[in-house]
């Protein structure tokens, strides 16, 4: 073989291997979705969505877990949204690269790399024990709120950066104060980006399992949470609970639970995309 044809063969080989890798990851994703669907679709019905868990697999449902996930998510958003946007606005609009802002930035970057289970230990040590909130919806939501905070801050800053300087200048030139400029011009302009980032952060939080197990969320709950101080379970923990059981019937339940979880995630992402498109159109 001549050196030229060898080089071209090498080029082909690299391309083929790359395409193989990408195909394999596509196959893996398809296999995963297919596996879950074929295991779980038979269990998907109204009864499954509205029943309490049960020792008998075919009677068990995810109602308390669904409500628990919803409650926890509300607390999570209630904490991460104002704190995250506030912090992002400070760093982007006020911080001005000062030493304090720099320190906070490094800190947030580091927090984004902390494993989620460590946030669980934080929640256990501080919220559950020191604050005495117990393994409640409040503890769980607060733990996930802190976990989501770096994501919300980073995506909000991205969104704020997309608002052109000229919009700020136009406002300042009319005698607007800094906050008036931010409130009336910058935040509305960044809103689609902020919302998209927030929904993505929430869709990550809804799939989190480990930190909530760590703070002591219960695996078996046959009541719906009555408030923020109530014990709770969430959908991923219910799924984990079913996966841990040896009987095949429970694995079927777990697969059905996963389908519900994935549908929730998918619809949240769809909402994010629709929101973004609508705002982009309105501003164009």
């Amino acid at each position: 073989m001549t050196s030229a044809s060898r080089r071209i063969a090498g080029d082909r080989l690299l391309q083929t291997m790359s395409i193989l890798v990408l195909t394999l990851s596509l196959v893996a994703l398809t296999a995963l979705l297919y596996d879950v669907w074929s295991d779980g679709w038979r269990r998907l019905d109204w009864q499954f969505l509205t029943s309490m868990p049960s020792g008998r697999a075919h009677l068990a449902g995810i109602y308390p877990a669904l409500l628990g996930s919803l409650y926890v998510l509300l607390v999570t958003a209630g904490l991460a949204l104002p704190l995250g946007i506030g912090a992002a606005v400070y760093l982007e609009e006020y911080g001005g690269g000062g030493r304090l802002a720099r320190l906070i930035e490094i800190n947030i970057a580091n927090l984004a790399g902390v494993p989620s289970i460590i946030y669980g230990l934080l929640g256990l040590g501080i919220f559950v024990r020191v604050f005495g909130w117990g393994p409640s919806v409040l503890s769980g939501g607060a733990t996930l709120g802190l976990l989501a905070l770096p994501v919300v801050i980073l995506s909000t800053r991205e969104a704020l950066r997309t608002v052109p300087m000229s919009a700020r200048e136009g406002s300042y030139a009319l005698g607007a104060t800094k906050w008036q400029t931010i409130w009336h011009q910058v935040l509305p302009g960044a809103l689609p980006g902020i919302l998209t980032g927030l929904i993505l952060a929430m869709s990550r939080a809804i799939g989190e399992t480990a930190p909530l197990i760590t703070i002591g969320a219960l695996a078996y709950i046959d009541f719906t949470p009555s408030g923020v101080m109530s014990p709770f379970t969430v959908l991923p923990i219910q799924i984990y609970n079913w996966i841990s059981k040896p009987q095949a019937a429970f694995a079927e339940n777990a697969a059905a639970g996963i389908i519900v979880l994935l549908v929730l995630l998918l619809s949240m992402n769809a909402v994010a995309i629709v929101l973004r498109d609508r705002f982009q159109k309105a501003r164009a």
Partner: protein
Amino acid sequence: MTTVLRPLSTLTTGAPHPATPVKIDVQGMNFYYGAKQALSDITISLNANVVTAFIGPSGCGKSTFLRTLNRMNDIIPGTRLEGRITIDGEDIYAPSTDVVGLRRRVGMVFQKSNPFPKSIFENIAYGLRINGLATSRSDMEGRIEESLKAAAIWDEVKDRLTESAQALSGGQQQRLCIARALAIQPEILLMDEPASALDPIATQRIEELIYELKSTYTIVIVTHNMQQAARVSDRTAFFWLGRLVESGPTATIFTNPAEKLTEDYVTGRFG
């Protein structure tokens, strides 16, 4: 040399101007972006109800200078100013200065029109609201109509006030931005190359507008277009590498400048 200055005929409109009081006075001003000095030792007085044009090649500091007059450079981190700028005798860089109040008195129109992504109505209403200038809805509507008329755009937009400002043409957008600045009744109007992105017809409308506005406002206009400076201004200041080379009546600057550098620039030998 008059052959290159075709628009000289128009100079008669603004040339013999009665003396008016000094509105803006700049003494020994230096300006820095971080360590880089952008303006050196600027000293100049600008008279009330006079149109002053800043000319010079790009990067000469004329826009930076304009932005020191309403402290717009404050929002750029790391900028610093030395020297003294007074408006009506008040030092606008004194620690006690209310920057927000200053910008209310000194309106600004930017090189690239920047209407807010809102309706035409809301674009004007914004400045009125944040400054608490309108006493009622009808007062608000009256002021908006007045400023749109003053900016010579009322007839084009009166039937579509609720439409998005970004649907307007470039020239209309720029006149809307002028209307927006006029609505809060400033004393001074700063214009940073207001027609550089516009076609000749839109440019002509802006220039006519400037001529009309001068009876009410003190106007400072930055332009890289010397014909435009000659057409619209009473006085002209020439900047070169962050320095003010020379300033004086526009006719003098264009026909009989004191400095060789100015002459070379206005006759188109460089720049």
